[in-house]
């Protein structure tokens, strides 16, 4: 079988990507999964030639491309995955309530992007120095919940499954799912190297495998949940957390060049990722493989 080395993210309750390795033999592939705790660590692995394909946020793919890493966006595997959560002991009605508050967020990710877009939309200025309407506090994903819990911040724009946990453990309440900006729901993308893309036959089978895995998960939510909870998390993720997380971040196949282009534009606008020479979405979003795979498998 042809070997494809796949970089996956650790807190990936988006189990479809992980599930690919289970069904890979059907497509004449052997998928070796490498799990990374942070998306940024995948990029050097790609450069070092250790990884052929990766699950990554759209902004991560943009940042990689902007630095000249030869990756292509070939599909989107999940949507959403962001939530603005406020302290459970405070009253929240809208994003406007964030004025004068400390808001925690992880730097450089989709969560920051949508947060800034929301603040902008509500006419709030922001900085990380505490001298504007909203005081941004940059931290690692894991630490943001901690800080909210110990009331060192007032609100956060958090990823999944952390935001679901904040809700289920009762120290956070949802303010909004921040998808009503020009960006819409942020998409997580599947990227492959140009080298793999050039190897058309393998790339096609890889995409087919991806589509099949995702379809299986969409069609069999119970089996998907069982796989994620038992195989990936060994029973340590609660049903409730899984359901909530998935609700805010469903499986999908699609991504559009427009969405990626909007992401790039907004990143430039808010200075996220401080892109030196922003790439053009059309140059690296290649959806032909995905279309072919969907067609072959008969999925609309």
């Amino acid at each position, binding site marked *: 079988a042809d070997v494809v080395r796949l*970089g996956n993210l*650790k*807190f990936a309750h988006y189990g479809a990507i992980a599930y690919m390795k289970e069904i890979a033999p059907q497509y004449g592939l052997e998928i070796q999964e*490498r*799990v*990374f*705790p*942070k998306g940024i*660590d995948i990029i*050097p*692995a790609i*450069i*070092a030639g*250790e*990884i052929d394909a990766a699950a990554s946020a759209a902004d991560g793919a943009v940042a990689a491309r902007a630095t000249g890493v030869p990756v292509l966006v070939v599909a989107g595997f999940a949507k959403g995955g962001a939530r603005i959560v406020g302290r459970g002991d405070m009253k929240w009605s809208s994003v406007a309530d964030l004025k004068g508050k400390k808001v925690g967020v992880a730097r450089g990710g989709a969560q920051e992007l949508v947060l800034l877009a929301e603040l902008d939309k509500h006419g709030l200025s922001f900085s990380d120095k505490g001298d504007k309407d909203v005081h941004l506090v940059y931290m690692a*994903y*894991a630490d943001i*919940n*901690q800080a909210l*819990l*110990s009331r060192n911040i007032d609100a956060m724009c958090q990823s999944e*499954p*952390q935001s679901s*946990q904040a809700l289920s*453990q009762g*120290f956070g309440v949802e303010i909004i799912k921040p998808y009503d900006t020009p960006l819409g729901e942020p998409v997580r993308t599947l990227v492959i190297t140009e080298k793999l893309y050039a190897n058309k036959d393998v790339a096609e089978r890889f995409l087919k495998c991806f589509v099949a895995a995702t379809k299986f998960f969409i069609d069999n939510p119970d089996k998907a949940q069982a796989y994620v909870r038992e195989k990936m998390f*060994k029973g*340590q*993720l609660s049903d409730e957390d899984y359901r909530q997380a998935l609700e805010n971040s469903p499986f999908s196949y699609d991504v559009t060049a427009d969405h990626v282009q909007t992401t790039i534009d907004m990143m430039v606008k808010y200075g996220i990722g401080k892109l030196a020479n922003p790439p053009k979405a059309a140059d690296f979003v290649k959806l032909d493989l995905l279309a072919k795979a969907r067609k072959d498998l008969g999925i609309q």
Partner: protein
Amino acid sequence: MGKADLDAPGLAARLARALAVPVALLALWQLAAVSGLVNPHILPSPWQVLRRWAAYASPTEPLAQGMNPLAWAFSGELPHDALATAVRVAVGFAIGAGLALPLGLAMGSFDRVYNLLNPLLQVLRPIPPIAYIPLAILWFGLGNPPAYFLISLGAFFPVLMNTIAGVRQVDRIYIRAGRNLGAGSATMFTRIILPAATPLILTGMRVGVGVAFICVIVAEMIAVNDGLGFRILEAREFFWSDKIIAGMLTIGLMGLAIDTCMDRLNAHLLRWHRGAGGR
């Protein structure tokens, strides 16, 4: 023999003494947890940690027929993680200390070598291991090799610094005596400088092991799927405080075990030493 007994109290007594402070702290912690003074999400009660620890250490599957019961008993996540981390620390430490020791001996002994290499090493020393991750992946790929690199980097500098200092503080009278008795460089190193510098080198090794443990958690960020550091990072992502603490304590106990061995080694290697004991 009453005196000998006083000098070497029974194992039970020593254990009791060693456990006094930790047990007291645990009691305090349990009290704080029960009284609701601390948020259980951040600092769960010792009891809860213990339960989580037990779950973490127990086999995940029931004993299957025909399976070796011993293998089964150690089939849990924790034994597997602990072993993986121990191996990484051991290999990384062996490489780091193995390079630092001869280099330290050379730098401590020859001012020329010291002056040549010291500026470079001092520039490299404070650079945090996390910053080396991209280079580690580039040079060593994924999995264990970059982990060894990062851990050995962490262990390297304490051993190096203490070896240099150890060599430099050897009383020159012994060096003179050795040279006068005809010792060549090799003999000087192995039979005079090394033993005379042993107190400091051993201390450097103990500190080095500690730093290696600090680094293993960074190292286990890079595409490995087991190890205590990996598990702590994972638990952090999911905000499982009890499992974080269980992992921390496991690392701590591993460190204690290593340290106890080091203490023994120390006492044996320095049995000639007329130290401050028995004043």
